[in-house]
């Protein structure tokens, strides 16, 4: 076994996230590659949620898989909830009441553990989870000093009794786990890798938030909306350290207008929202288009329409983000595939927005922002920020017509010039004009054609995975990255390659070279209308085949692999 997949399933409020955090933390410190991702309902308590933890001795197992090696059902509805993922090989560890046998294809793989009783013996139900943690530690041979230090750090702020009880509960779990190993009920032999111990663990939200910090973000105004709020919360926590103004806006319209106002006055601003909140920002997006004020949007997608499935994942808003806002102007859209890309693309987004004075998007999704990735480092040595602003003099004109279309951007109060921005069609000085014959076409050229041309020059290239001499090319974007990549690696097809786009708009012309080499091109997307496929068609006149999933769940490695093998 190169890799183990463990799932915890229970109600909201049962503390699954705590187990996830403890287990992934300690396993990583022991030298395992860990990755975890959750699917959950839109409620605070109750319901049925599950968390997948993948532990491997190789990198890049950061994808969703259907397979469950070990399952911890924490509520009576857990097994039913996961029915379609439980196989005869799945080992089920849980207490009597949570094991509905009709969902266990292989009774021999049921291991009953009386978690509640044990926890109550120690001091109460709340220690149940720590017993499970102990089992993990035993199964993966985590050293005692690691777990002790970790638990102490985590629980000592809550007082000694609680800490001691937790340690006790953990020990009971370890004993039970060791017993399982002894009994030969299960066996795990992964290699530990010392270098992993120093890895970072962070989720997509944190990666985006930190990318924005790396870019010099100092103003964020946003209205809470799942799954985008994680970014706002992380930045709020770090606001004082990094000098960030946090404004919880009265609504999304305010948020975007405040963001634009802040950029105008010299800040680096971002908003974070999801599709429904973005829907309220499209007028503001168009404003940033005509003002030529930079703006950065983080849109964490979830399935729609309307309120849809607030805590689920999807890639349904690309065409909306691409065509949102009235009128015509240039924009750029990035779609990170994992935490690392999220960090670097977000940092890049601010500089690009500033350089060309355009709105720039980070288009993520629930799967990406809520997945916990582990990675060696985020290397800051090549981080470079340029403030594309200019000290003005008396003759300053905000919309000076220049050869390449970019007018130097002044900031009010910086220099002796005046900075006039105007949402009406305007002259070079930023005052209202009705000159349709001369100024209007020039301003459209500037905002649209010239900037698009520049954006294409700065295109962030897609990543090609697989054989160079492919005849079939899978195309993906955003968070499908890891699943498609892993599926391709696992498949035995030598004629299939995968092209992962990080920048989804605009595309540079030479991208066609990748497509021309393929006999067949297939887009893999988490939506029902092949939205990136449309971008490809419009740009390159190629109509790709489609492999689509739109039920609110991410692609699993297995289903992509199956698709690849039948292609």
């Amino acid at each position, binding site marked *: 076994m190169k890799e183990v997949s463990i799932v915890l399933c229970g109600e909201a409020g049962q503390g699954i996230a705590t187990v996830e955090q403890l287990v992934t933390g300690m396993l990583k410190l022991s030298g395992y590659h860990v990755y975890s991702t959750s699917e959950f309902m839109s409620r605070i308590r109750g319901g049925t949620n599950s968390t997948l933890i993948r532990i491997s001795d190789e990198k890049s197992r950061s994808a969703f898989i259907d397979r469950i090696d070990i399952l911890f059902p924490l509520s009576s509805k857990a097994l039913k909830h996961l029915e379609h993922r439980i196989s005869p090989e799945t080992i089920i560890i849980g207490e009597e009441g949570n094991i509905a046998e009709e969902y266990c294809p292989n009774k021999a793989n049921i291991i009953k553990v009386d978690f509640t009783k044990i926890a109550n013996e120690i001091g109460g139900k709340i220690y149940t989870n720590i017993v499970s943690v102990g089992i993990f530690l035993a199964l993966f041979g985590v050293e005692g000093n690691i777990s002790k230090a970790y638990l102490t750090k985590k629980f000592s702020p809550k007082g000694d009794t609680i800490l001691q009880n937790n340690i006790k509960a953990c020990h009971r779990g370890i004993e039970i786990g060791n017993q399982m190993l002894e009994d030969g009920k299960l066996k795990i032999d992964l290699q530990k890798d010392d270098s992993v111990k120093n890895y970072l663990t962070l989720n997509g939200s944190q990666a985006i938030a930190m990318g924005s910090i790396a870019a010099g973000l100092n103003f964020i105004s946003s209205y809470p909306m799942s799954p985008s709020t994680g970014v706002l919360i992380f930045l709020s926590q770090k606001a004082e350290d990094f000098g960030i103004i946090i404004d919880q806006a009265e609504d999304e319209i305010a948020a975007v207008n405040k*963001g634009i106002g802040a950029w105008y006055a010299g800040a680096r601003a971002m908003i974070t929202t999801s599709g429904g909140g973005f829907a309220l920002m499209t007028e503001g997006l168009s404003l940033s288009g005509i003002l030529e004020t930079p703006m950065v949007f983080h849109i964490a997608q979830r399935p729609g329409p309307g309120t849809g499935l607030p805590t689920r994942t999807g890639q349904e808003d690309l065409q909306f983000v691409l065509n949102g806002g009235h009128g015509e102007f240039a924009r750029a859209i990035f779609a990170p595939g994992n935490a690392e890309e999220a960090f670097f693309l977000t940092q890049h987004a601010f500089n690009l927005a500033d350089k060309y004075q355009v709105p720039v998007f980070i288009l993520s999704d629930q799967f990406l922002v809520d997945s916990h990735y582990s990675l060696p480092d985020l290397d800051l040595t090549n981080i470079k*920020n340029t403030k594309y602003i200019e000290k003005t003099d008396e003759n300053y004109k905000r919309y000076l017509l220049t050869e390449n279309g970019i007018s130097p951007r002044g900031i009010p109060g910086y220099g002796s010039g005046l900075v006039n921005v105007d949402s009406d069609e305007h002259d070079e000085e930023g*005052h209202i004009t009705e000159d349709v014959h001369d100024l209007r076409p020039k301003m459209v050229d500037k905002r649209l054609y010239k900037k698009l041309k520049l954006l294409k020059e700065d295109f962030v290239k897609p990543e090609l995975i697989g054989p160079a001499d492919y005849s079939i090319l899978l195309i993906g974007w955003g968070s499908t990255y890891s699943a498609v990549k892993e599926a391709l690696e696992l498949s035995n097809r030598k004629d299939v390659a995968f092209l992962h786009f990080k920048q989804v708009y605009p595309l540079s012309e030479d991208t066609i070279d990748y497509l021309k080499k393929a006999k067949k091109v297939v887009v893999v997307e988490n939506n029902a209308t092949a939205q990136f496929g449309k971008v490809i068609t419009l740009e390159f006149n190629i109509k790709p085949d489609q492999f689509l999933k739109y039920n609110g769940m991410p692609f699993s490695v297995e289903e992509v692999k199956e698709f690849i093998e039948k292609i």
Partner: protein
Amino acid sequence: MDTSIYDMPHETDVAWCPGCGNFSILKIVKQALTELDIKPEELVMASGIGQAAKTPHYLKTNVFNGLHGRAVAAAMAVKAANPELTVIVESGDGCSFGEGGNHFIHNILRNPNITHLAHDNMVYGLTKGQASPTSQFGFITPVQVQGVTNEPFNPLALAIALDAAFVARVSIANQEKSLEVIKQAISFKGYSFVDILQPCVSFNKINTWKWFRENVYYLEESYDPKNRTEAFKRATEKGKLPLGVFYKNEKPTFEDYLPVYKTNKDPLYKREVNLPQLQKLIDSMRH
């Protein structure tokens, strides 16, 4: 008073109708700014869309002419990003209270140190004469053919209900008094709101220059603007409209609360990322 530092550097085709109250407001605002010795480069005038919202184009300063209804939102961010700037919002009653109602409420609650001058002509001017939130009951328009049936929006009472920092009303038919109150508003630290009664000669044939002269009176000298209940009472009086400063409630501003300015007063545009600090944050995620 020589207000020429605020004059446009070249001929400007002002898009207002002859006789419109906006001309007087523009004049008074220029005068207030000059008298308060605010430099054009240190001022940002933010506006939305409407006839009133064109004002910033007619005086020489920094202009943020954004979207209909959204000026207050943008303006508070400008101020937050650079508290050294004087920030004034100038926009119509439709822009300020109709489309912009939610920003009006919630930024009063935030109390940024900006001034909001609402040109209240009780009508939508630029879109040719539909009712605005402040249109009077019974006001007939091409859309309100039977006359307005909504309760007219009372911006003063609302601002007082939200415990706003500075609430005033003037009538531009009396320029001298308007100047005085507008100067007070601009000098005041906190969200200072002035409802400026302004005739629209093209589309409001009810609330004319004459009407605004005859249907107002000034709050008496002895009036105490610190009493919230009294302010509310006066703001909701039936009959003639009182003018003057209704309510003053100085308190910390949005910017005062911002940690970013606690020790470092630099506006945001002067700042750089603290990469060593970020490196620390990254390293903290290894455990």
